[in-house]
């Protein structure tokens, strides 16, 4: 399972792709079962005047929802631990709680095409 994440160009806000629009919460992200559909969606989503650093992340099922598998992406979807009042975690909500409680190994290999994207 995959989702598409980026930072909004104008303000750097972390955003998730959902059927042609960018959303600000991971809980609103479109999830892709098939890799080729996800790749095609990235090509559509990565509009340089709207977003920067656009890429696919791995997502895994949790108790009653989904969470990014990479620890890095969990931090990105929630906010910094030292300031719980900053970032998306400040708003709270089911998706945030779910990510914060996500268990198991948070694989750092969740970001695809890392080397290609950094060229």
């Amino acid at each position, binding site marked *: 399972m995959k989702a598409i994440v980026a*930072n909004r*160009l*104008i*303000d*750097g*806000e*972390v955003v998730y792709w959902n059927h042609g629009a960018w959303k600000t919460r991971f809980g609103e992200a479109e999830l892709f079962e098939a890799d080729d559909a996800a790749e095609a969606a990235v090509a559509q989503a990565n509009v*340089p*005047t709207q977003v*920067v*650093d656009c890429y696919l992340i791995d997502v895994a099922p949790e108790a009653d929802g989904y969470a990014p598998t*990479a*620890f*890095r992406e969990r*931090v*990105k979807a929630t*906010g*910094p*631990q*030292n*300031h719980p009042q*900053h*970032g998306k975690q400040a708003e709270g909500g089911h998706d945030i709680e779910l990510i914060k409680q996500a268990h198991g*190994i*948070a*694989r*750092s*290999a969740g970001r695809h095409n890392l080397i290609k994207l950094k060229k």
Partner: protein
Amino acid sequence: MYRYDAIDRAFVEDRAAQFKAQVARRLAGEISEDQFKPLRLMNGLYLQLHAYMLRISIPYGTLSTTQLRKLAWIARTYDKGYGHFTTRQNLQFHWIKLRDVPDILDHLASVEMHALQTSGNCIRNVTSDPRAGATAEEIEDPRVWSELIRQWAALHPEFSFLPRKFKIAVTASPHDRTAARLHDIGLLMRKGREGLGFEVIVGGGMGRTPYVGPTIREFLPAEHLMSYLEAILRIYNRHGRRDNIYKARIKILVAQLGAEEFARQVEAEWEAIDRPSLDLPQAEIERVRAGFAAPAFETLPGRSDAFEAAKAADYALARFARNNVHPHKQPGYAIVDISLKAPGETPGDATGDQMDAIADLADAYSFGEVRVTHEQNLVLAHVKLDDVAAVFAGLKAIGLASANINLVSDIIACPGLDYCALANARAIPIAQDIAVRFANAETAEKIGELKIKISGCINACGHHHVGHIGILGVDKKGEEFYQLSLGGSAAEDAEVGKILGPAVPADKVTDAVDQMIEVYLRERHAGERFIDTYRRVGLVPFKEAVYAEAH
């Protein structure tokens, strides 16, 4: 402190205007991110996990209170009300919006500040001694030479596209508070028969390949500093590797050539170049020197009865005096360190309100000037002994009176995976956890000087290589693990620490630190600091203690 002249002012204003146009073109889609990225980095603007990060240059760590208040205002207006002081004596804002950056740069320019030379493959902000102009140890104020280097580097087209970033430190005290031997160039001021000069160290550094830099010249007459730096940079620019980012720093070139051969090439280059056109006229040196003239100190006795009485009456003040107050060259004055390491807080963070309050204290008690240390603390450099109690009370009121300078909770930590796009692991929560475990002031004083430094990745912004205890966050099969090292030093006895053993999981790091401290307390001889005991007994007892428990 040094004030901008017309050239400085025009240059900084031009760069702000130039970047404003570049941002507009990027937002309009006229330039791509690939084209824009090097331009934004030249203006200190990074993209991190949650937002853009703007790194603002604080040349050689000296701030006026006008500048500090402006930073406080920017923190409240454009960020989330706080800033993060870094190990390069700079300040970072972590929640910046691209659309606001042009306005922020205009505001910075209005107080003679900018974000230049805080990123990119150029000569970065010069590091200097936070006690410059205040300590009796120094030969002269090293900021004179730091400022001359700043002016030379900021406008130098030849050295704006180096193989990799380039960091210079200048100190004039035998006790090195700049980590000079861990810089690309370290300049240690010396006084010889010929007058002022520098011992020149080249090729130190941290990152994935740490080196303590070798000395390539024992004494360089100070008046030739610019031509000699030019010669070093030319050799690096010519022969430094551009094909491999991990081998592009000058430390790799120096290590591969050998210090002797590198020095020979620099000397040959120096002989060949047109020194008179590069070295500064004495009048220009004196002009800049005048910018660092000593403030109008009062003539006071060396001992303050009021301060002694206040210490006798207040145990907390006495503790603060023991740890945060240091001798000043002027009788009746002291250097006061402000710890940004209250246990449980983020190392190096200060809120806008705290910055304003510190500016008020500096105006009232320290000639309107504040220093930033590479250990992520602040300094009021010229406080009358009579006023230390008032400064302490002012700091207590804003939660910044921790009397822990150089103690176990005075931890350097990079932003780590909580913010940084490059990090493998978090650094801040590890620092908070250790600091809270050792929050008891008596325990911390009993342990004595202990420098713990934490980096969230191998780039080593948290200086873990040179921590008495170094902690490096690594990604081990997808989990945050921490590699411990021992015996590093960033001081005049600079040394790269040795790895203790296999990395430990996050929840074992504080226990491991505790176990190493137990070994030290058990093994230490009278008067020994942690690092001294380690140097005497070696790695083995520490290793046995940690791995008996952790695995």
